[in-house]
């Protein structure tokens, strides 16, 4: 392993809600350009981890460093400005707006303006290009349809496009594949692979293990808020702790 500063470093991160410890002493490093898969049973603290990194929830203890800078407890808009964007497990589009207008909001952010050298340019055109990148057919009516009228598959793509619009260095995808058909998933996988070749760092929270293992460089397994395994996908799944978490302890 190289000893360069990782893009994201999480140290001893803990979050308790009342008496429940959602995330406990979590620690991991993520090198630039890598895809980290995060798996674990329901309620194992995956989404809380995302909320902690992106600033939607403040940690009880611990440190988060991004590009060597501490960002622990920063509000979401500042975290985004540093270059971390996310999608929501439950899609959060602007239902009243046409699909492409949904992207105007992230394109309006100070980060995008800064990266464009102070100019915004024609946001509508950028938005339509982005939608095409995530699989909206070019010049099809679907891009102009109200987000409230889009089917789930398109809403997930829109969610992905919204996070891509911010031109982030790190994208966190929170169960992007949940609720999608096999065909839809296999059409989104190439988009994520393309992001990887562009050098983006990605964290994927996923229940669809087969697709995840194909693209992930490393996999981390959580259970009851703790990291119980980390490494190559195949190794991780062989670990007894993971087997127990997923299949339950064997009867004696």
């Amino acid at each position, binding site marked *: 392993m190289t000893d360069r500063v990782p893009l994201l470093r999480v140290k001893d991160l803990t979050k308790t809600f009342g008496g429940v410890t959602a995330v406990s002493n979590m620690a991991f490093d993520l090198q630039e350009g890598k895809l980290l898969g995060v798996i674990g049973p329901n309620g194992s603290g995956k989404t809380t981890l995302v909320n902690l990194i*992106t600033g*939607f929830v403040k940690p009880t203890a611990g440190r988060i460093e991004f590009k060597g800078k501490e960002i622990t407890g920063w*509000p*979401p*808009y500042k975290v*985004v*400005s540093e270059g971390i*964007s*996310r999608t*929501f497990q439950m899609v*959060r*589009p*602007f*239902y*009243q*707006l046409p699909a492409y*207008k949904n992207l*105007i*909001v*992230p*394109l*309006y*952010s*100070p*980060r*995008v303006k800064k990266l464009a050298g102070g100019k*915004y340019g024609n*946001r*509508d055109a950028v938005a339509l290009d982005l939608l095409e990148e995530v699989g909206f057919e070019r010049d099809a009516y679907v891009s102009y349809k109200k987000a409230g009228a889009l089917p789930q598959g398109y809403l997930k793509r829109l969610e992905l496009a*919204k*996070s891509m*619009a*911010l031109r982030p260095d790190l994208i966190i995808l929170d169960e992007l594949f949940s609720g999608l058909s096999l065909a839809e998933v296999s059409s989104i996988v190439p988009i994520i692979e393309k992001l990887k070749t562009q050098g983006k760092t990605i964290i994927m929270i996923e229940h669809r293990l087969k697709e995840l293992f194909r693209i992930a460089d490393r996999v981390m397994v959580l259970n009851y808020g703790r990291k119980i395994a980390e490494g190559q996908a195949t190794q991780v799944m062989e670990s007894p702790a993971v087997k127990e978490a997923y299949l339950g302890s064997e009867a004696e």
Partner: protein
Amino acid sequence: MDRRKERIDRGVKARSVDIFALTSYREMIYLLIPGAVPVVGLLCFTPLLSDYWREVIISTAIYALLAMSWDMLMSAGLLSLGQSLFFGIGSYLAGSLNYYAGLPPILTLPIATLLGGVICTVFLLPVLRLRGVYFAMVTLVLPLMLSRLVEATRILGGTEGLTGLTSFPNQLTALFIIELALLGVLFGFRRIMGSDYGLVIKGISDNDRSVMSAGLNIYWYKTQVLFLGSSVGCFAGAFGTHMDMFAGMPGFALDYSIMPVAAAVVGGTGTFAGPLIGAFILVPLSEMLRALGALRIVFYGLFLVIFVVGLPEGIFAYIQRKYQQIERWVDVS
């Protein structure tokens, strides 16, 4: 040669979204009429009315400003039940500047508008994180608290209020000032909400967490909207004060909170033109029903119910739809 009906706006829409490549005067007129109606109606038609009806128009315009201010706050998801807070603050500011410092309306109006906007924004800043009913409750209570404060401490004239303030030179001047303000706010707000900035504001009311994750500080945007909305409300209050030559506790009255909401709901929210139309129907209607005496409220309430049940989307949305559906005969060769 066959003929068929075709909607006028089809071609106009397709060609006028980004680039204005209109092909005929007819199309230009079609696009200009909706903007011209309020301008011509207000500036050319209202001065011809009798003194009494001009007075009605002026008080209508005050309510219309409050209603558009309410609509602006609503665009960002801020439900205000306390438009009288803005009216009262604007009223007392302009009143005391005139009463104690002797400033003429030409100075008190802009000062009360801007300073009032700042004061109201600061008042509501601590509760900006609240949404919906919770924000509404605070806005409802604040003007009541302030009016009791004036009563108890006897500051600013106490229950007597500040009397004998400077009025406008004549009724026509006052009419033009308020109508220009009304048009400025109408077109200004519509322009703001039609821009990408407006999309962000709408996004906040639609889904605030999504706006947060888009790298935007929603509290900063809400603060800006609050300032815009409250300064328009304060202008209405400052204007009303000089009109009545009086600033007092009635400025915090519930009328100024309820009527704007009713006007916005009847006219159609989120359009600014809707609240304006709503105010121009409800306020004169209430005047006309004056002859009915005690039955006035009954009929007034009845009209309100008819409007809300009959046109739940609002009068403006209905007119807009009908206008867009206007058809003309075209030759099909």
